């Protein structure tokens, strides 16, 4: 999908979040010089096109007590990776599920997923449930818990520094 210049302005205005006022879309539409109805129609289109994956509350899981995070990497036969990838992606505590290349002999894993939990044992229990429920016992996998974070910077979707509260992306 090609974004128009107006789309880029719309995204720049809205990517930091809706204003918490009674008519948030009207407030944003007003800044863009368009009608509230036009803005809402375009947002619905961007949702159905898949550019907007969801609309809603974006939680900070670490602040809410989900401190443990493990990257679980799997060595899945190539012909089975679609099936297992879809199963893992549908698990509610799995965030992110990607296929990446093996780099043999150093790196035999081709499927990556992230599991969050309140603490390490909760993550391991959740993983054990997933393995058992889906019968993945025969598939080699490894669990990489996160340690220190040296740098974390959210990427802005479109650059327009002057209109964005930095703290919303930190």
């Amino acid at each position, binding site marked *: 999908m090609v974004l128009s210049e107006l789309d880029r302005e719309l995204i720049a205005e809205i990517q930091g979040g809706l204003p918490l006022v009674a008519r948030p879309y009207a407030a944003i539409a007003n800044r863009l010089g368009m009608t509230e109805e036009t803005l809402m129609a375009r947002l619905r289109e961007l949702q159905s096109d898949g550019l907007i*994956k969801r609309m809603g509350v974006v939680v900070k899981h670490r602040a809410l007590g989900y401190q443990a995070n493990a990257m679980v990497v799997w060595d899945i036969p190539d012909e089975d990776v679609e099936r297992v990838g879809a199963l893992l992606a549908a698990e509610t505590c799995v965030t992110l599920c990607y296929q990446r290349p093996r780099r043999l002999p150093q790196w035999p894993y081709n499927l990556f997923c992230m599991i969050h939990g309140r603490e390490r044992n909760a993550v391991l229990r959740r993983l054990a449930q997933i393995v058992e429920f889906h019968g993945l016992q025969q598939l080699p996998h490894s669990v990489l818990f996160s340690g220190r974070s040296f740098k974390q910077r959210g990427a802005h979707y479109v650059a327009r520094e002057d209109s964005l509260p930095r703290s919303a992306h930190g």
Partner: protein
Amino acid sequence: MSITNIKTRADDTAAALDAPASLTPLEKCLLNEYQRGFPVCAEPFAEIAAQQDVPEAQVIATLASLQQRGLISRVGPVFAPLRAGASTLAALSVTGDRLPAVADMVSRYDEVNHNYEREHHYNLWFVVTAADEAGVQGVLEDIEMRTGLAVLDLPLEQSFYIDLGFPLWC
């Protein structure tokens, strides 16, 4: 997106975790039930208020409070990853005493936006994003030259993940 009653996820069998006691029922509801499907209508907070049978002002004040306390980053759209540009997930295997210095060196690249430790033989993981593939490879080669370490280069091949929000107390 409808929730089916068919048990297709291991998570469905998991015992419920207790919510943090400090959260009110309305806070828990807003955190869990409105990560997707946020209304795109003129008065979305009034619609949520009607659904939950509370005053609109209370919905707005509660969301503002959650944001102010750092438990949510925003209310609004979550965008699909940009398809423009090139990126990769990269890893280095660094001996413990060198890790802080190497991590610091990696973090200094503008092209690196996440850089963190993981518990593994490959213990430093980072995401490199650039305008094109040559830009990504240039950063990886530079890091290899400066550290004398071989970089594991794991670009995305396929995403299975559908972002439905992060389930709390699941």
